[in-house]
């Protein structure tokens, strides 16, 4: 509880800075609209030739795309930049500033650079998401929505640890600070139905780099595929990634050398 209070205060501090500085509100709204428009056009062209893609109707694909965008944007607006900034803190030896505080440094770092302006993109994505239901002409039950939110939250946590674990490699390979872009690259795969992936890639994307489950599993609950196995599997993956995170953080700190002698 105490920790939560401190995190909220920290976020409030960041929010205050956000307001103090003029931000690109309009621009972020435009970004959201552009993304949504491009996705809309892309699938509109495809669905003018076929009526489903691996069983996904047009409405369903918009729900999936919308979910993928919402998850990604929420992640990036709150934690993404902060987590990735770890590599810069390590490289410049500024991690000290957090290590000497009586609070988990990895948590503070994750909340270090929230991008509140990115929230302004969310409405556009949400419109795409809702438009999907409009095309389908059905709406999920309250219970399904609840399951969706649960699954969505677990996905968010997996996404956090996934990006953190990749960033933590900076402790070992300081020079390679480009590495963390890889996770955003891989997130591409989350935007499409999991069924399109075959063979070794499919195996990788649901285990080692479980990007396709991030978006696809929550959506299953909205598309009348209620199967609790998916939820359990997500929790399992979360648990594993959390353990890896703990281990890497501990080992990484031992290797940490700061910037100056």
């Amino acid at each position, binding site marked *: 509880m105490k920790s939560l209070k401190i995190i909220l205060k920290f976020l409030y501090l960041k929010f205050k*800075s956000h307001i103090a500085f003029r931000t690109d509100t309009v621009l972020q709204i435009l970004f959201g609209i552009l993304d949504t428009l491009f996705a809309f056009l892309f699938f509109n062209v495809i669905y003018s030739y076929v009526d489903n893609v691996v069983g996904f109707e047009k409405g369903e694909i918009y729900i999936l795309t919308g979910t993928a965008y919402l998850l990604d944007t929420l992640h990036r607006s709150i934690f993404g930049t902060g987590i990735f900034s770890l590599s810069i803190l390590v490289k410049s030896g*500024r*991690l000290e500033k957090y*290590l000497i505080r009586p609070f988990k440094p990895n948590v503070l770092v994750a909340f270090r650079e929230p991008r509140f302006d990115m929230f302004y993109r969310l409405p556009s994505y949400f419109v795409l998401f809702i438009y999907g239901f409009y095309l389908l002409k059905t709406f999920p039950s309250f219970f399904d929505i609840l399951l969706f939110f649960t699954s969505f939250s677990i996905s968010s946590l997996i996404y956090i640890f996934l990006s953190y674990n990749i960033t933590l490699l900076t402790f070992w390979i300081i020079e390679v600070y480009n590495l963390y872009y890889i996770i955003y690259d891989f997130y591409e795969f989350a935007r499409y139905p999991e069924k399109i992936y075959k063979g070794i890639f499919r195996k990788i994307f649901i285990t080692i780099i479980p990007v396709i489950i991030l978006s696809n599993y929550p959506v299953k609950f909205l598309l009348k595929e209620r199967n609790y196995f998916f939820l359990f599997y997500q929790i399992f993956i979360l648990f594993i990634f959390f353990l890896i995170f703990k281990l890497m953080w501990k080992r990484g700190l*031992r290797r940490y*050398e700061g910037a100056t*002698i």
Partner: protein
Amino acid sequence: MEVIKVKDLHKIYRRPIKEKGLKGSIKEFFKRKYEEVHALKGISFEVYEGEILGFVGPNGAGKTTCMKILSGVLYKTKGYVNVLGFDPFKREKEFLKKITFVMGLEGFLEEIVWDISARDGLYFIKDLYEVNDKVFLENLNEMVEILDVKDILDVPLRRISKGQKMRLELIASLIYNPSVLFLDEPTLGLDIVSQKNIREFIKYYVEKNKATCILTSHYMKDVEELSDRLIVINNGEIIYEGSVQGAIEKFSGKKLIKFSLKDERDKEKLKNFYPKIHKDKEEGIYRILVPKSFASEITKNLFQNFEITDITIEEPELEEVLRDVFESSS
């Protein structure tokens, strides 16, 4: 009472060897060579309650490394370290609440607030360190008064000058009443007024709170005025431990001759005569550090060969002494 105890502390860094050019980069990518840097070679010392220990030595001597190990930031390679009864690297909450680490210009305030005021940042630090409101306000009022920062407390940090920012950072580092202070170059790059102000404040804080402090500084004035005791460290080894006065005596046994030349054209000749000569840029005064027994002979010599004005023979200051030591060792 012993607050900090260090015994046979070693720190070895592994540093990648950079190879030049594209070929080197590619090779480096697959297999990197490392060299080992022995930053601390088995140092031992203690610091007692209420004491300010001055840590001096040239860049890369191991001062900062040592403080980072003592504050739990870096992991030691070998040896025993104890601060306030804690093993620093475990980074227990109770330990971290009792220490502070001021890292020159790398402040925590500017890390957490930039576009907003220092006051916002200080309130967050209050929550982070779980300081109760009454104590916090008392400390804040007092520190703001002494450091004279009342009118910048509510200004966005990015608009504040370096010297004033440092004062605010100092408040941020001490507002929760830490009992162990690691001060790494607290006055680096500041104007003389700020330096003095900060020195006085540190002295006041340590006395009032019976705090323990390790201090490094490039400015010998800081060290001379503040330190109760001095450790001189060079190449990861302690080469002196004792009083400031003692250091001057040990390393010098020397006198400082100060003088001016009537004719600056004799400069070159002077350099041949005595290569290790220093000249104060502002005053145009030459300084030579000489062994005590030779002082009068050299003075005589100077008078014979040059036209000299304003000559004095003094006890050297610490800075002068150490410069001499490190120059001859490197």
